[in-house]
């Protein structure tokens, strides 16, 4: 059994340390949070802050990747999978002291699923085209009704913050809910069920969160959580600035850093005992190359439609070089987008061949390409094959991966240019104007379950990167992908879901709509004296157990 599967179980088997109360934790963020309103937040810094202020009904344990009770202490599922009956914890209060009950749950689902609110959670809570509805049975029992069966439905409730009806109902009815709970809001007007409460906003400097004295979780000895008095979220910009502050003592936790920064930190702090660097191994993120398979684009892109061509490109790529040169060895080569760290879902029967130019040339010949006297690969009309690969300029790694791929393809005689673009402009080209040849992008990290990827694998999906938002599947293999993904989404039998998703990965391997490259390791850093620091491969990597973090010794 691979280490990636065993390690989380070993970690959760370890009991939590009994912590000491007190102290302040300073966390670096790339940018400042824009809002504290769960109904509005789509940027990562805002979501990070909101996770600390609020709680959900069911959580995904970041180590086991399985669901566990949170505000719902238990639940039952009907035989058809369409009804979840949740028993809520008793004696739970919001940070302002107001009791939490079923009315808050019903209110929360009403707000999130209201089309007028346009909450980012709304898409997540749509099953079979209809929103999940909540019905109160008694003060501590709710029933969630789904329009159709949905495999592992309880996973969608992770991160869905429960909203206080007593504070927000009036604003919701007045149509003002999107305007409340911004950074200028007085702290006493914001209440949540999370381990911390909003205390202060220092513009451009920090968001200060203080302990929530009404937090419902206790440690194993019955002592109240969280241990920390305060968490400060500091927007420090680029990773270089965060690392500098960390080494100088201005920041206590780096949530995720690149392999380059990790290497530099390791060298600099080799003699220091106060810094702990951790390489968690492979994560769930995958980086891949894909071609523009939209029809009716430029004629030089016709060859991209040929699966033999795409497989040839995949065969020509030196993934070991990408892992070594781009990530300093701190990454895993990939042949499908499901990473080995996703131990439950990865299809281990698929081949993982090393780079082979002979295989690539044979496939290119099969695709109808010929080599001219200058050694250039030419299409059927005799023109040398040339195309560009787009990569986001904000990432240091993706342009490097694209350049290595370009170098591999030049060995085959294909002319490749690498063009970097700002991320939003790149996504616009891929999803809207569709004016590109090929692109290197990355996805994943949100959840191990395949269901959040429906939008990528369904041909009608807006994130079906290579040919989005199709009216009907353009190819038989995409039709099969649609059928498989829809079936696994509503199959409650775990083993059958696995078989269905294995077949999805096999089609991905055969047709190569995305050519997986590498998955970077999850690399984090913290002060060594921070107790219960157990980072995970699922976001939020370091603060998912913020209520249990504590200082073993004062600064």
């Amino acid at each position, binding site marked *: 059994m691979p280490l990636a599967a065993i390690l989380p179980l070993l970690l959760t088997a370890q009991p939590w340390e009994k912590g000491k109360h007190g102290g302040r934790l300073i966390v670096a963020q790339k940018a400042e949070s824009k809002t504290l309103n769960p109904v509005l937040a789509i940027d990562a810094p805002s979501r990070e802050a909101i996770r600390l202020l609020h709680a959900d009904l069911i959580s995904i344990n970041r180590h086991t990747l399985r669901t566990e009770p949170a505000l719902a202490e238990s639940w039952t599922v009907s035989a058809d999978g369409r009804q979840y009956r949740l028993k809520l914890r008793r004696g739970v209060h919001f940070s302002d002291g107001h009791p939490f009950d079923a009315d808050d749950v019903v209110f929360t689902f009403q707000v999130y699923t209201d089309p007028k609110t346009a909450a980012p959670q709304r898409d997540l809570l749509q099953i079979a085209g209809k929103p999940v509805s909540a019905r109160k049975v008694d003060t501590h029992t709710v029933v969630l009704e789904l329009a159709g069966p949905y495999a592992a439905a309880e996973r969608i409730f992770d991160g869905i913050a429960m909203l206080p009806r007593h504070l927000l109902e009036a604003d919701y009815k007045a149509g003002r809910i999107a305007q409340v709970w911004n950074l200028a809001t007085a702290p006493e007007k914001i209440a949540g069920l999370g381990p911390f409460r909003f205390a202060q906003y220092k513009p451009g400097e920090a968001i200060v969160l203080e302990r929530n004295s009404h937090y419902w979780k206790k440690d194993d000895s019955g002592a109240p959580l969280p241990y920390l008095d305060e968490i400060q979220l500091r927007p420090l910009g680029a990773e270089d600035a965060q690392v500098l502050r960390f080494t100088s003592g201005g920041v206590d936790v780096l949530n995720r850093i690149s392999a380059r920064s990790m290497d530099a930190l390791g060298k600099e702090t080799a003699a220091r005992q106060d810094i702990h660097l951790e390489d968690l191994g492979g994560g769930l993120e995958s980086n891949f190359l894909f071609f523009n398979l939209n029809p009716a684009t430029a004629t030089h892109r016709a060859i991209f439609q040929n699966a033999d061509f795409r497989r040839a490109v995949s065969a020509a790529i*030196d993934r070991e070089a990408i892992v070594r040169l781009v990530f300093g060895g*701190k990454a895993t080569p990939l042949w499908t987008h499901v990473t080995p760290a996703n131990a439950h879902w990865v299809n281990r029967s698929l081949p993982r061949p090393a780079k082979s130019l002979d295989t690539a040339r044979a496939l290119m010949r099969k695709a109808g390409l010929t080599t001219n006297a200058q050694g250039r690969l030419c299409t059927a009309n005799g023109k040398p094959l040339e195309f560009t690969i787009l990569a986001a300029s904000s990432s240091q790694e993706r342009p490097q991966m694209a350049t290595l791929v370009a170098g591999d393809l030049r060995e085959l005689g294909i002319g490749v240019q690498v063009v970097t673009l700002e991320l939003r402009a790149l996504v616009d080209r891929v999803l809207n104007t569709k004016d590109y040849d090929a692109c290197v992008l990355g996805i994943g990290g949100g959840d191990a379950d395949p269901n959040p990827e429906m939008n990528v694998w369904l041909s009608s999906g807006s994130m079906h990167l290579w040919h989005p938002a199709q009216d009907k599947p353009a190819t038989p293999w995409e039709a099969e992908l649609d059928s498989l993904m829809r079936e696994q989404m509503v199959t409650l039998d775990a083993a059958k879901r696995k078989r269905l998703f294995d077949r999805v990965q096999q089609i991905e391997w055969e047709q190569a709509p995305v050519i997986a490259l590498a998955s970077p390791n999850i690399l984090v850093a913290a002060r060594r004296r921070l107790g219960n620091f157990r980072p995970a491969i699922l976001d939020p990597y370091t603060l998912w157990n913020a209520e249990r973090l504590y200082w073993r010794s004062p600064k």
Partner: protein
Amino acid sequence: MSTRRWSLVLLAAVHLALAAAGYLAPYDPAEQHRAWPNVPPVRPHLFDASGTFAGPFVYGLTPLGNWGGYKEDPAKRYPIHFLTQGRLWAAGPDAPAFLLGTDELGRDQLSRLLHGGRISLAAGLLAAALSILCGISLGMLAGYREGLAQTLILRGAELSLALPWLYFLLGVRATLPLALQPESTFLLLSAAIGCIGWARPAVLACAATRVARHRDWVRVAQSFGASRMHILRRHILPELLPIALAQAVILIPRYVLAEVTLSYLGLGIHDPGVSWGTMLAAARQLPVLVSEWWLALPCAAVAIVFQVYQFAARAWEDRAFGYTEGNAGRPDRSVAVGGHTSAAPHSPTMGEG
């Protein structure tokens, strides 16, 4: 040798070196030596470990882990050969003869510096030529015609001077197709940069033309019925040539910097092409800059180009105002401007006693 001569020698040397990049560079600039990423500058040797002369050679390198650096392997020696494979020097395909190190993908920095400099400098030269051609032409027209033409051209120049050039460049670049052939990218980039700099030459040319058109020989030519074109070409334009040359030595390094900036931002030359800007983009991260300092060498190259042109500009200024060696600050009586001198006979000229 006088400063002016030195500056010309240096200018010529830099340009020749970059023009001969294909001959001087030991490797293809896009070639990835994947076994040798992040190699620091390699020292060539003449004598082996026992002190025996062994000709120019480099030792093999043993990597010390990912990003861990390298150490020389005395057991492996790779001789350097001259005038081979169409290059000035080379050391064989397996030899780590990277005199200025390699980048993160194992590409030789010396080869990229030479080839990239050729692109950056050529873009600067082409853009400056375009700016000066447009500027001088429009300035001459404005200065000679006066009236509405002058008003429009001078107001347009003022507007152009007021625009922040970088944002203007970004805007112009945004209108161009994203992915072009390297040659097309180079030409369009040069044209875009050249478009922003016409204003200053135009204003200077306009002022000089307004003075020149009142000169005696111009009036005499007019009275003899010389056409406007004849007067502009034979009598006005020679007076503007010093302005053009002076602007050239000022604008070229600035346009080199503009091309470097655009390429650094990903809006100029793309891989597999190389320019100093794309090289500097690899050194963006602080850990990279600290541990692989050689990736910042294009900064030194840009500084050298600037300094060489600065010397040339200074030397030109001295000549234009008649300053001689050891006579700085005191104007010489011969004022050689525009080929028409108002000098008294027997006036000493630059460099003479």
